[in-house]
């Protein structure tokens, strides 16, 4: 962080003017008169602030934002931006990274216990993958550009200098604004396509009780689960609800003051930023478990097909359901509509 300071030349003219402002000639008889009290009815700033929290008035220009004379809530926003948000963000993200590291250290990579079956089962079709990856890519862009607004000034600016950082931030802001639409669309489609599988079902209680088997170092616990296990459901709902919150608060920010006043804008910021960093943390976990953290998991979204054994271990109920549908046979990976 840099502070630029400008030394300015202040001549005695300034002081002379200031003195000229107030000190005037009073007639001699003016001394011994009784005081009037025109201020008796005058509004006091403190009183207005105490009663209403901010000071609003009338203004002749069309910009009605300007009618807010003072909103001390700006100071709250300042401390949120300066300390609350970076702390929450740092704790959430670094905390998550530490948790993952700890998990990895303790549990290691989750292997498919039964090994590969060489039989594949279609888990996500092309549309679903497109949807996922669109949303995911958008999210990553948004996350990076968003985090840049929180941490860039502290972390990146000192490295690349103000001009480069400003240029980068400017582009990243454009990116954030435009890519956000892809994300919003993705979240909506995801909600429509996957909501059915993410409603609570009979396996959830057990899955939660055994923590999905994740904590079983022997890797023998595999609570049954449908197409999405409870952990995935949590990710889904985090993404959907978080995504919707981000979208709504984001739209408020894309159209400043179109739907709300200054305090509403601040709230939108609070919501957007906090949900944003929390979601980054969740998605970090999601990325970990979908890639490094679990053997065979990436393929589900990568190629769309997973090894049958992997599926049986993690989504036994779903596999059974699929097999019932096709008369006990392992469904071929070309099956068009695995979800139906």
């Amino acid at each position, binding site marked *: 962080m840099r502070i*630029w*300071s*400008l*030394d*300015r*030349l202040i001549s005695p003219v300034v002081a002379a*003017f200031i003195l*000229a402002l107030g000190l*005037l*000639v*009073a*007639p001699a008889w*003016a001394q011994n*008169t*009784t*005081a*009037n*009290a*025109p201020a008796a009815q005058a509004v006091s700033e403190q009183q207005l602030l105490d009663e209403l929290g901010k000071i609003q008035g*009338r203004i*002749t*220009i*069309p*910009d009605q934002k300007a009618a807010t004379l003072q909103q001390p809530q700006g100071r709250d926003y300042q401390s949120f931006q300066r300390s609350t948000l970076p702390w929450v963000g740092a704790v959430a993200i670094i905390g998550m990274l530490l948790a993952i590291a700890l998990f990895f250290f303790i549990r290691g990579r989750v292997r498919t216990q039964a090994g590969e079956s060489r039989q594949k089962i279609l888990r996500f079709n092309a549309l679903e993958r497109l949807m996922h990856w669109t949303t995911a890519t958008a999210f990553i862009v948004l996350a990076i550009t968003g985090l840049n607004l929180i941490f860039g000034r502290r972390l990146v600016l000192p490295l690349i200098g*103000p*001009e480069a950082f400003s240029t980068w931030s400017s582009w990243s802001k454009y990116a954030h604004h435009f890519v956000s639409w892809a994300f919003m669309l993705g979240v909506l489609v995801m909600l429509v396509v996957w909501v059915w599988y993410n409603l609570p079902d009979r396996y959830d209680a057990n899955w939660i009780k055994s923590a999905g088997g994740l904590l079983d170092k022997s890797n023998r616990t595999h609570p049954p689960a449908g197409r999405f296990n409870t952990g995935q459901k949590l990710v889904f709902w985090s993404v959907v609800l978080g995504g919707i919150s981000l979208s709504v608060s984001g739209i408020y920010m894309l159209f400043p003051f179109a739907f709300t006043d200054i305090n509403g804008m601040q709230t939108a910021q609070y919501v957007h930023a906090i949900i944003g960093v929390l979601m980054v943390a969740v998605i970090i976990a999601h990325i970990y478990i979908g890639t490094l953290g679990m053997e065979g998991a990436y393929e589900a979204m990568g190629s769309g097909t997973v090894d049958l054994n992997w599926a049986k271990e993690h989504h036994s109920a779903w596999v059974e359901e699929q097999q019932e549908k096709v008369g006990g046979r392992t469904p071929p990976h070309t099956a068009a509509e695995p979800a139906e």
Partner: protein
Amino acid sequence: MLTKRKSGQASRTRLQALTGGLAAASMDRRTFLRRSGLTAGGLASLGAFHLGTVKAADISPPQPGVPIELKKSICTHCSVGCTVTAEIQNGVWTGQEPSWDSPFNRGSHCAKGASVRELVHSDRRLKYPMKLVDGQWERTTWDEAINGIGDKLLEIRKKSGPESTYWMGSAKFSNEGTYLFRKLAALWGTNNQDHQARICHSTTVAGVANTWGYGAMTNSYNDIRNSKTMLVLGGNPAEAHPVAMQHLLEGKELNNANLIVMDPRFTRTAAHATEYARFRSGTDIALLWGMLWHIFENGWEDKEFIAQRVYGMDEVRKEVAKYTPDEVETITGVPGDQLKRIAETFATQKPATIIWCMGQTHHTVGTANTRASCILCLATGNVGKPGTGANIFRGHDNVQGATDIGLDVVTLPFYYGLTEGAWKHWGRVWEIPYNDLVGQFSSKELMETPGIPLTRWFDSVSLAKEDIDQPDIMRSMFVQGHASNSITRIPESIEGLAGLELLVVADPHPTTWASLAVKAGRKDNTYLLPVCTQFETSGSRVASNRALQWGEQIVAPSFEQKDDYQVLYLLSKKLGLADWMFKNIKVEGDRPVPEDVLREMNRGSWSTGYCGQSPERLKAHMRNQHKFDLLTLRAPKDDPEVGGDYYGLPWPCWGKPEIRHPGTSNLYSTGLHVMDGGSPFRARFGVERNGETLLAEGSYTNGSELTDGYPEFTMAVLQKLGWDRDLTAEELSVIQPIGDDMGDIGKVSWSTDLSGGIQRVALRHGCHPYGNGKARALAWNLPDPVPIHREPIYTPKVDLVAKYPTYPDAKQFRLPNMGFSVQKAAVDNGTAKSFPIILTTGRLVEYEGGGEETRSNRWLAELQQDMFVEINPDDAASRGINDGGWVWVSGAENNVKAKVKALVTERVGKGVAFMPFHFGGWFQGEDLRTNYPEGTDPYVLGESANSITTYGYDPATGMQEPKVTLCQIAAV
């Protein structure tokens, strides 16, 4: 890359320029115009700016490294007389600096003053002469325009006589422009010439002059700093004269003074009052008499002052007795105990001053209102001392000067009137034989008959010939610097516009004349002449406190604009009057030299004391502004250039410039020697009436050799006193022929003696040239010798009309004034039921007058983008009107309505609405933007309040009544 700036480097731009950065690329005026796109029409295509769409062209950025020249002129937006300090680079006005040296504004400005640079640069100005051809505006040349106008004028003159041309001049003229315009109308042969004072303070001038001699502000803005009590009745200086508020508020703070505001509206001024009383618009007399009732009842009057210096107060006492607290509360709505408190404060906490503006004047009883105010001052002895007086805030920058110079239907310059003697006096000054002057008129009778006031110009077009006391109806009109939308009854003025054979508008902007002329269906014989602002010419202007200030030309006009002097020269040449007009005035090219014009004025203006303000003295004052005291406005006596002078030589400044009269800062101050600006009341009304003396008794100015009242000085008086021996031979050589002309040298008076000798001798003896008289509480020559309350023409209190009717119908100023019939019809027809809301009009700080020039100033226009009506929350709620929503305001006459935005506010009481009068360019919901010549439409247009205002004329002056009428408001 940002780097730390060293303090040494910081002092650049202007400072560097001042210390001589020479080589930098220079930008002359043409280049700057090209760059800013002005020559190509600039922003002309944009209707109005909208938030967030426009980065306006940089009109005139400072030019680093180019030397800066500082020039001073006077703000053109109100009568405070703020000095404007301009920074000029290469002939371009690139900046404005505070004018610290001016004792009036001390660096300050209001929104308008702080933006006058843009007034000059505005690309919405009229750039070329234009004329209507088949209903379309087309560019023309000055030659063509002047020839076309002149031929038509002469044709109409031949057909209908000189009285059928209306000369509408301007309070925006300099004194010199005013004088030339007045002289041109006189030489053309008509008294149908007028200017904004008609709709501004004509009633003040009539009322106040008829009370104590001169109808002007008695003291000054600065002097209000001395007041212990300030009563603002009918004024809103916070919006109309913001810089005056500096003096009021500082005075209030330093003296712990009372600031009492009485107004139908809770104005921005009222917000700073120590006492505020809301009263019903149009009931000022009842209010003032209500105060006087308490004053007389409690013996708070100044008995000694009344005995020595006031005539006829007993008659007032009789009338005031009728205005009991109950009656006054019924009429005005102000509770008796509050009014008693106000009366006591005004009468006992002295010095007290009464301040007014349009609130008192804009009424059918305007003249009586102002008289009642003066009488309040007289009764309490609040005249002629610091901190007292009638501080009348005039409107325009030179409305005082234009009034003094007689751009008015009732008088020749300087209140000489229209009598044969007056014409002869001016004939001597102009060196034109009296018979030649008579020959210019239709008749000697019309030469001595007041003309038609501009409030009625359209009636003089539309009424039948038989109804007008002159040979023919009005057929042509030459308007130079006057708005059309500041005159009431716009629907009828549109008919008038249709009826005129010729309309000429000479103005920096096309104004609403242009848009309404097209609306009226005019197809041809309509000209727009582009005129300079006062910043593009030089000359003197008079602030409200009667002080003259000389403005320099700040920049030359950018396009084909000509200044007022040039326009009048070209026109008078075309009309064959130039030889008379400029007999003693040098003309350089086509521009008469304003200094010479002022010198001619000096030679003829003895009656008002404009004789001592030579251009040299005025210029010396502008150079030495910093030497004048803030409170007294006087320079130290030992100063070589301006020693002992009051700033701006406020008139009367007696005698020739050489005798160095200091001017008169506070009128009627007997505590001062006449050569220190002391004066008694003017002995204007004779020496006695009905056996009672009209001369002062036991009161005289400090150091006077005559220690009692005395009449005005004539040669006869001098001879009687034996003081004629003090006249020099040179003076006598001037006086003698005048005496011969008059048939008796004894008749030559202080006001007709062109040598200034009589004034000089009177002053030498400590006496005042105009005599030492009493002020008149009873003015026998006015419609109501003692003011009485009269209900407005359109009043919501119909039950009071029987007791307090308006004036009877009569013929005034050549036209019938049917006020009584109109009021009666309104009562009989139940107008107050269909139109239950009182409508009053007034000013906004951002705009001025008709507002075209200020609405064409982007910095101002941005601040008020919509015409509005203020309406009380209760009235709004019962009509389903929301703040900011569109409403129709319908007027009581002509079935007229206006579409404006609602401003729901408690500034106005229940049953009262307020509209600002600066808007124009809309009519009955129709946007007339396309009626302007392309690129000259103001940024902001809106309905004119005067579409809604109604009939009503003060019988003494023809003043309109825009401050009170009735309306109805409904949501759109």
